[in-house]
């Protein structure tokens, strides 16, 4: 049917006109405008009018979100766009940071006539320089071997950072002062709120640049060599060159992120290039969603929130992040952004109402299961780590004895009972979802 229709059309007219796309795009534009306005306004929502000060915690968390967004976005240039699983991304972030400290020292001494606003560009160039060296080695391979090589590079740089004191400062790191008295707009950058707006500006610039890169031939070829590198070769492109360019550019943006890190904290230690940060970049990009451009930003915001919120309350927040990550890998490979986007056709068709009841029926056992899981993890962690730190588990104002049987029993009943209940409800949810999807399918192809 469809075939016959498309054949009867004149050739110069596009066969399929994407009707939904412009709407979706303008809606996305709105979302990002709102996010930007929120990012600008957020510090003022936590402004203390009696002391005339911004909340330091909120400003530093927002600054962190900005840098981490750049890191996660640049990581996604590899994982999402080129299909390269890198484990040394923090290396370029860190080198940007270390270099920036040295640039700041030079600028402070008066031998680098550059305003503070432009120094992150130099940090980016340092990241780019190192990425050229390591990218030359790593991009000879792809997939698993690439991951292994980057793991080695990351470890090499971490050990080197602890050994060579002149550039890296050893375990203590290197420090500097960001008030170099040279600014484009006349700010001193003494207050963290000024630095936050600098970070925001650079985040916006970098994000736009990376968005632009996805639409260039290079970005398209990166996607192509991710999906089928042999075909790319047949077409006359060198997939290795594509990987190399993508790697180098992502190193550039990571370097910018590191530069902002150095400017914010005025000290860079080997933490800025060690493996945990590389892993963090991966977690942020993946949990947010690697198939959508904005996914890593969402992931960066979310993980930073979790990091500053949950990690204060719980010793074991990495377990939660790890379990979330693994469930994402198995059940939602496109991350949170992918889950949201999957609802797009249903919402546009006005059928979302039919999902509300099934959602409630899934969420209730899901919460029971989550409660049980958190209970088991926290009980176990208070039994060992908490006991070593001399902490006790306090819930609703009453102490809970982690050696008693009752709390353990309750947690396990919640976990296992919730798991079975959840599976049953998830199956019926799946049926409703599939039903909706098959209803929508003929409509979509007709449009």
């Amino acid at each position, binding site marked *: 049917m469809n075939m016959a229709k498309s054949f009867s059309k004149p050739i110069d007219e596009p066969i399929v006109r994407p009707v939904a796309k412009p709407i979706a795009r303008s809606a996305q534009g709105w979302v990002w405008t709102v996010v930007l306005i929120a990012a600008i306004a957020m510090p003022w929502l936590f402004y203390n009018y009696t002391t005339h000060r911004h909340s330091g915690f909120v400003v530093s968390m927002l600054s962190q979100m900005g840098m981490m967004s750049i890191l996660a976005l640049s990581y996604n240039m590899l*994982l999402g766009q080129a*299909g390269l*699983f890198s484990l040394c991304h923090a290396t370029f972030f860190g080198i940007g940071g270390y270099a920036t400290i040295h640039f700041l020292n030079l600028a402070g001494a008066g031998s680098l006539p550059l305003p503070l606003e432009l120094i992150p560009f130099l940090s980016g160039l340092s990241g780019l320089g190192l990425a050229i060296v390591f990218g030359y*080695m790593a991009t*000879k*391979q*792809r*997939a*698993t*071997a*690439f*991951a*292994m*090589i980057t*793991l*080695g*590079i990351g*470890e*090499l740089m971490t*050990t*080197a950072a602890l*050994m*060579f*004191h*002149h*550039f890296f400062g050893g375990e203590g790191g290197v420090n500097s002062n960001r008030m170099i008295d040279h600014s484009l707009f006349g700010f001193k950058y003494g207050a963290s709120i000024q630095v936050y707006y600098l970070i925001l500006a650079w985040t916006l610039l970098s994000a736009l640049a990376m968005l632009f890169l996805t639409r260039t031939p290079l970005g398209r070829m990166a996607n192509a060599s991710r999906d089928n590198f042999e075909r790319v070769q047949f077409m006359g492109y060198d997939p290795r060159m594509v990987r190399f360019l993508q790697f180098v550019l992502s190193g550039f943006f990571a370097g910018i992120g590191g530069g902002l890190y150095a400017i914010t904290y005025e000290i860079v230690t080997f933490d800025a290039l060690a*493996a945990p940060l590389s*892993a963090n970049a*991966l977690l942020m990009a*993946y949990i947010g969603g690697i198939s959508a451009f904005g996914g890593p930003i969402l992931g960066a915001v979310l993980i930073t929130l979790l990091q500053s919120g949950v990690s204060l309350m719980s010793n*074991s927040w*990495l*377990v939660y*992040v*790890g*379990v979330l*990550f*693994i469930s994402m*890998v*198995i059940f939602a*490979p496109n991350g949170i952004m992918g889950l949201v986007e999957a609802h797009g056709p249903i919402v546009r068709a006005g059928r979302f109402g039919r999902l509300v009841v099934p959602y409630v029926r899934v969420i209730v056992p899901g919460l029971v299961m989550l409660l049980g899981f958190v209970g088991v*993890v926290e009980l*176990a*962690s208070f*039994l*060992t*780590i908490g*006991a*070593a730190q001399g902490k006790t588990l306090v819930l609703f104002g009453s102490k809970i004895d982690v050696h008693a049987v009752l709390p353990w029993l309750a947690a396990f009943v919640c976990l296992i009972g919730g798991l079975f209940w959840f599976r049953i409800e998830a199956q019926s949810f799946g049926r409703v979802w599939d039903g909706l999807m098959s209803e929508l399918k003929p409509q979509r192809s007709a449009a």
Partner: protein
Amino acid sequence: MEIVLVSLLNGLVYGMLLFMLASGLTLIFSMMGVLNFAHASIYMIGAYLAFTVSQFTGFFPALIIAPVLCGLLGAAIEVWGLRRAHGNGHIAELLFTFGLVFIIQRVVQMTWGMLPMAYRVPPLLDFPLFTFYGAHFPAYRGFMLLVSAGMLLATWLLLKKTRVGLIIQAALTQPQMVSALGHNVPRVFTIVFAGGCMLAGLAGVIGGNYQTTEPGMADAMGPIVFVVVVFGGLGSLMGCFIASIFMGMIQTFAVVINASLLDLIKPLGITLTGDNLFTEFMTVPVARIGALLPFALMILILLFRPRGLMGTRDT
């Protein structure tokens, strides 16, 4: 001279330990195309389980029980996790095992605490095996050599001389054909994954009291094992063996060499003055950069042989 001999033996012990880990990793990789990031975590679990089990039964039963438990854990990971992730593509499998590293790390900390365990060498083996030039060689290290060599011989016999080994070898290269002949290839995959984890667990049992049983041991061992696998060539057992022994030697010899790059060029009449990064790089003694050498060597070999020492295929 005695330093050379002692280092040679220690390097051999460490190299064999590395090979026990790396061989399981290589087997799993060549069969399923998955590099199991959590391999070193299984090694850590092996050490912790051996500690706990040996509290009840003594060391020697634990030598059997802990690896078996690790093998069961590996089978569970393959059946309930990896197989599902497989549906989402190749990178998803890698990411899955990478996520496992975090979870296992924290679960171990939650179960056994942050402090090192008092997992000691069994008293039966706690004596110097022989002494030369005043240096003792502990009997336990000899025992480690024995266990790892025995285990590797057993694995080799299993792969080369039995029917199961024949099917495994066939499934390595021709999974579709083996499946068409009526063999349950997914089950073969599970067996290989569990077997690799068992080897890692056994390495943990004998490595846990050779090094220290503490939550950081997976992070300390992991990168080295991956370097070994890449250095030897992904998927090549022979290359993996050479690389393991080589890395073991490098690591143990590096700590006793006090020379630096400058000493190498000194006979040419070059001297360095000044206090800068280059001078620091040239004068740092090898003993201090021992931890850095495996990674530097890996990068060097990849520059000249991108497939590693004996690798036969790209990924």
